[in-house]
């Protein structure tokens, strides 16, 4: 029987500074066969090993169309991510996965889509946005609404300017500074800029629970169906394979049944969310 906790070695090929204490890592498997065979759906995650410091789950932020390597976006938050932020190009890490269900990409095709992200929550959305931009008839129209705490916390500024060529992109910050000329306030404040046929529209959310709750309420008011409001949830997925118990919400395992749930499913979970 295979050891499901066995990681594969990957090399850090590139590191990009994305925002304050947030970096993107380009990871490439050492093993040639794994490198060619590794596939995933947007919204899936990996368990990343920093050997000697343990493992932690990260969403894959690159598109599945991109071959050879994958990207993850990492905020310096705990001991593992602090160590990861010290690693250099050429250093080796471990990867298990991909895990989780990912976004329902077929359901999203040819639809009007509102992306709503907060902070580092843009990471899993980026994988899906880049995928839909590339796939034929990926979407009908696309709105990308994003909020960060401060201007320097905006993750991947160049992504937004790239996306703005094909989608309507709106940014906001909670606290502005002199450099900021845009909107100030919660990301849900950007929703009035959206003009869609609600019945034909899906929304994809990633951010802190308070943001997801607020956004869900507003989207329902606009007229979106509950099964068309899709959120990817954050839980401490330690094992990633439905065993260790850390990520359960009610009778669901976020690592296997999620991390992507519809608002309808979230409502059926216990109020713990």
């Amino acid at each position, binding site marked *: 029987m295979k050891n499901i906790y066995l990681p594969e070695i990957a090399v850090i090929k590139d590191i990009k500074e994305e925002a304050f204490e947030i970096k993107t890592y380009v990871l490439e498997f050492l093993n040639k066969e794994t490198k060619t065979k590794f596939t995933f759906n947007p919204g899936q995650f990996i368990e990343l090993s920093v050997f000697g410091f343990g493992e932690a789950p990260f969403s894959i932020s690159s598109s599945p169309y991109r071959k050879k390597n994958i990207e993850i976006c990492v905020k310096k938050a*705990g001991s593992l991510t602090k160590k990861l932020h010290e690693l250099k190009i050429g250093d*080796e890490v471990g990867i298990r996965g991909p895990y989780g269900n990912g976004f329902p990409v077929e359901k999203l095709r040819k639809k009007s889509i509102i992306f709503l992200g907060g902070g580092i929550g843009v990471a899993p959305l980026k994988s899906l946005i880049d995928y839909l931009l590339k796939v034929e008839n990926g979407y009908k129209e696309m709105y990308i609404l994003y909020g960060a705490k401060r201007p320097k916390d905006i993750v991947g500024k160049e992504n937004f300017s790239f996306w703005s060529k094909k989608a309507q992109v709106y940014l906001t910050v909670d606290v502005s500074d002199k450099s900021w000329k845009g909107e100030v306030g919660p990301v849900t404040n950007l929703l009035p800029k959206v003009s869609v046929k609600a019945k034909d529209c899906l929304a994809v959310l990633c951010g802190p629970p308070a943001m997801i709750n607020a956004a869900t309420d507003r989207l329902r008011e606009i007229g979106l169906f509950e099964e068309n409001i899709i959120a990817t949830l954050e839980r401490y997925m330690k*094992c990633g394979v439905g065993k*260790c118990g850390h990520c359960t919400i009610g009778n669901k395992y976020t690592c296997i049944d999620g991390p992507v749930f519809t608002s309808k499913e979230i409502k059926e979970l216990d109020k713990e969310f």
Partner: protein
Amino acid sequence: MADKLISKEDLNTLIDNLAKDIDVFAPVKKGDMYLYSKISSSKDISLNGKNTKKPLKEVFFGQSEELISFKTAKKEIEIIESEEDGKKRVIIGSRPCDAAALPILDEVFGWDYKDSFYLDKRERTTIISITCNEVEESCFCTSFGNISPSSKEGSDLLLTDIGESFYVEVVTDKGDAIIEGNSNLFKKAENISQKDKRQKEAVEKVKRRVELEGLKEKLDINFEDPIWKEISQKCLGCAACTYLCPTCHCFDIQDEMKKSTGKRVRNWDSCAFGHFTQMPGHQPRTEQFQRFRQRVIHKFKYYVDKFNKTACVGCGRCIENCPVNMDITKVIEKIVSS
């Protein structure tokens, strides 16, 4: 797969024979407690003792268990797979409640991804349980329909002490193989009435009972009931109940380093701890009552929803070992009557 008899002397011979070739685990008295331990001789075993301090799960799901090891050299990492020794194993003298916990654990370690560490040990282990001679005041196994001091759930053979001999009931092919391999030690079964009498007596010794009817229906709807705060007030969050529970299976994964070599281990963890769900920017269970609620609802509702099994066997360890005398049977009573 006919029932058999084995004399007490021959059982010792069987244990000694088995211990020569394979790993034998049995309850062993250590200080003032009993623990499932690997034995090399039948002299070490204690079949009449109290319930073991720690549950049988430990033999399949170690309190601390290596998953991989690795070496680091400059930038490069070498991963070394942790392998099981592959030896056949026998457990002798497990309590029926502990054995009954194994099919419950099988569900979580076997659904979707297969946990090789647990399943491999399960596969190569034969479980010989024994009808409880003595029960504890905290035992409440008979509250569950399929579990009792002489139930066969999860066992391969069940022994019942009938005086000079043990009456041997064969439950599975695995159990039968033990008899086949040592047929000279087993005799044709007789004294079935004595066996039935002993089993009936054992069942009657269990005085504590909790009414489970209506519990699941209550838990389906009472997540936000103020009763959770009330019944969990005493809880210290020490996790003794979860560590010593035969069905609790949550674990943490940690790296342990010694210079340039390290190992990744999984350690028993507990939903009673605050850090269990703590993430850098989010904590879904900020208060102790939420953690207490998680433990109870997980055992009696979530596990039932998902695997159609209750994750409790009534072994009583959580009652016996709680430092502030929390009592799961009282908790259930309060929930049902709320």
